[in-house]
């Protein structure tokens, strides 16, 4: 349980949000050109990182906006929040 600083509404309880999983997985431009393996990679395969992970979250019970966060999954500490379309912070790997 933790607080998330929604880039639009400010700091709110995590129960107002829903998690959209790993961030920066780009939907293939031409799915029909992909092999079954490549399509499975996009659909199912995840880094599932223990440590610093880039993720998508949605303020579903608030402004309904999607945004990205950088979170340490080993202690749930949020290191950075940035909007969709913005460049991910470079100081985390």
């Amino acid at each position, binding site marked *: 349980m933790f607080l998330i600083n929604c880039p639009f509404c400010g700091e709110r309880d995590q*129960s107002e949000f829903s998690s959209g999983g790993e961030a920066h997985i780009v939907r293939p431009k031409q799915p029909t050109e992909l092999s079954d393996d490549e399509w499975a990679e996009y659909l199912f395969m995840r880094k599932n990182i223990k440590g610093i992970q880039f993720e998508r979250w949605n303020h579903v019970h608030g402004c309904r906006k999607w945004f990205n966060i950088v979170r340490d999954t080993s202690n749930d500490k949020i290191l950075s929040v940035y909007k969709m379309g913005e460049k991910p912070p470079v100081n985390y790997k």
Partner: protein
Amino acid sequence: MLDILHPNISNINKNNIDINLSEEKIKINIRGKNKEFFTKVGKILSIILPSESNTSSSNENYDVLWLSPDEWMIYFDENKNSNIFDQLYKDISSLNFGSITDVSSQLICINIKGENIFELLSSGSPFNFEKFKNNVGSSTQTIVNHIDVILHHKSKNNVNLFVRRSFSEHLYEWLVDSSNFV
């Protein structure tokens, strides 16, 4: 005229909490982000849309709540300005400057007033009301008893709560029940 069926919400007063079904209101959801959109809205409503999160702006006719960077809700008593929706729709939606949606029946407005209302709301919500209760004009979207709500701090210790119609009676029951424990 067709009869209106109101939700089964009656007036309750206990522990310095007053819960009422508010009188019938028009609610309009407005969305947009370009310059024409803001100009048109300002002209039609004579109001500047609040750009700061969790705030509202009001004049003698309308209240406008900030919902997200490109979304607001305007509400007002039904007997006023009945053609404002048509005007907004014609000048904005039809011209593709933004999107105007009538949500009058989507949302039920429950008015809650009294000294203990923030204690009541806090007992079923993860929202931190500390700033909200000291600032008349604050607005927010959050959860109360697991139900999505829009809250508007209309005047001191007087909150308009907007909830989806199908959840309204259930939330009202919870509010009445929980008033016993504040």
